């Protein structure tokens, strides 16, 4: 198992380098003077010159990159062109909100998606299977932001049960997390169903039945335990993907998270913040994947024991 984990950790290094390269060149692909771009449209020539000196933008390119990397490692992401606050501050203020939504959403998705998938697999082609698969397909085809708007129309406008946006108490969390969870629950249900169908048709399931075990035991102890391995992997990946969906959901519900931040920054051409947020998203995603790999190693005895 140690080998496996070390390999996984090492494989993230080229990815991290890749991301840093991507972001580094992203800035320089933009038309115009990078220093000006970073300083923002309101900057004075003096401020622009300051930035140029500070970031060494008149140096050779490899020196710039080295500079960039050294700043990254020190968590110096520059300053927002809009607010002049350090980018790390802006991100830090909003990161917990996004994480909150994502965690609630993934929990909801697993709570409903996994059992639905199991029931579907145990009774294939029954009415409940058709219900689950159809709903799952619908859920995956629905635009996240439209679902959010519709939920607002129904629950905030017509029924007046829940607030339409912003933060405050637990009631503000409900609609955004349901919206965010919709796609994920559909995906998880489908994945669970197909994984369970596969494990239920394996030889070892027949062996288990031939021993006279109750169907319940066969499904849960024998089939599900095997199916959980890929399901956990998928859940982890979906958690990472949630971060992307958060952008749209946060916009609909005016939720003060990272997604809103990145959209506002793009609209305002606030490049330091854009770069910083994208970097953080990438880091989060990689970390989530690593954790998933770790869980995978713990859960699958073939990897845990040698």
């Amino acid at each position, binding site marked *: 198992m140690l080998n496996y984990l070390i390999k996984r950790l090492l494989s993230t290094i080229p990815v991290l380098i890749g991301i840093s390269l991507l972001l580094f060149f992203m800035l320089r692909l933009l038309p115009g003077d990078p220093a000006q771009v970073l300083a923002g449209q309101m900057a004075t020539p003096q401020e622009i010159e300051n930035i140029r000196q500070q970031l060494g933008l008149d140096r050779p390119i490899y020196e710039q990159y080295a500079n960039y990397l050294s700043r990254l490692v020190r968590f110096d992401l520059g300053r927002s062109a809009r607010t002049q606050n350090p980018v790390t501050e802006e991100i830090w203020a909003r990161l917990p909100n996004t994480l909150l939504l994502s965690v609630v959403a993934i929990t909801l998705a697993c709570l409903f998606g996994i059992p639905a998938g199991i029931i579907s697999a145990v009774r294939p082609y029954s009415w409940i299977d058709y219900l689950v698969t159809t709903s799952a397909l619908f859920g995956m085809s629905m635009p996240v932001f439209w679902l959010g708007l519709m939920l607002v129309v129904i629950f905030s406008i017509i029924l007046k049960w829940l607030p339409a946006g912003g933060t405050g108490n637990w009631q503000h969390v409900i609609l955004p997390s349901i919206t965010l969870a919709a796609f994920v629950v559909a995906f998880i249900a489908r994945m669970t169903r197909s994984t369970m169908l596969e494990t239920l048709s394996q*030889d*070892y399931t*027949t*062996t288990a039945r031939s*021993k006279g075990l109750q*169907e319940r035991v066969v499904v849960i102890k024998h089939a599900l335990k095997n199916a959980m391995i890929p399901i956990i992997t998928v859940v982890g990946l979906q958690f990472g993907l949630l971060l992307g969906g958060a952008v749209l959901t946060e916009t609909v519900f005016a939720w003060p998270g990272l997604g809103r931040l990145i959209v506002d920054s793009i609209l305002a051409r606030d490049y330091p913040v854009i770069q910083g947020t994208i970097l953080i998203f990438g880091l989060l995603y990689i970390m989530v994947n690593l954790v998933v790999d770790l869980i995978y190693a713990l859960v699958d005895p*073939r990897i845990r024991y040698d």
Partner: protein
Amino acid sequence: MTTRTNPLLKISNLHIRFHTLDGVVQAVDGIDFEVYAGETLGLVGESGCGKSVTALSILQLLRCPPAEIQGQIFFEGQNLLELGREGIRKIRGNDISMIFQEPMTSLNPVLRIGEQIAEAGRLHKNMNRQQAWRWAVEMLRMVQIPGPGSRSRQYPHKFSGGMRQRAMIAMALSCNPRLILADEPTTALDVTIQAQIMTLMQRLKQEFKSAIVLITHDLGVIAEMASRVVVMYAGKVVEEAPVKALFKDPRHPYTQGLLGSIPVIGRKEQTGRQLQEIAGMVPSPSNMPVGCRFHPRCRYAMDKCHQEEPPMTRLAGHRRVSCWLESK
């Protein structure tokens, strides 16, 4: 000797059909045979003749639909096919157990070996956790797995193919069943391991006094282990005889062909015959020949064979054959 009057297992007029997208496939078309307590019955035939499906149907391990089973399977006088889900569950692993062909995939990769053996004991024999686990270790010792105490805590991927098959045998014997269905237990193993497993099974059979239905296409295994043989072809029983008689004097042309296709060193000098092959191919279930199913490949085929299926003829010495040559 076994009693001739009360068979342990009696299969009567068994038909098994599969409803597929391409139509209805008749896998087993009216077979019957009996198994007596303590004996080893060999069930021989090529791939696709329906022998595995027959075994699975005894324990109701076939999905119905798409499978459809008709006929009767009597175990100690009770028709297994009339048992509901709970009824057959009590029989499985307890009175009748099964050994499968592929030891690599037939064991659950995420459960410890000891657990996989112990759970049957806990279920059927009401043992508690410790008793069942100790019994599982004991079973592993009986199938000659070294270091059974520590081995029982390991997962299947640590076991070699031969060891996994031993573990499967331990699993099958754990509740002392009266009948074991062994579906090609040695086919997936190396030849040297095959011999070991066969010896092991022989010894355990003596100790546990269970009957075995040994399903295989390997006549060598049959010669070693079986006392009686049932030969199947294309979903039907074509011959049945005690093993020595079958090998010495096969009556059905298919059996003759099977025995003739075993390479024997020095055979050519002894008998003047080279390796005999059976020309042609096993017919596909959707395309069964009319009349005797074997006639397209039979060197002795007569006109009658093209038209009518031969009846099962009883011969001396507890033998049966289904061939027009024997029933004039």
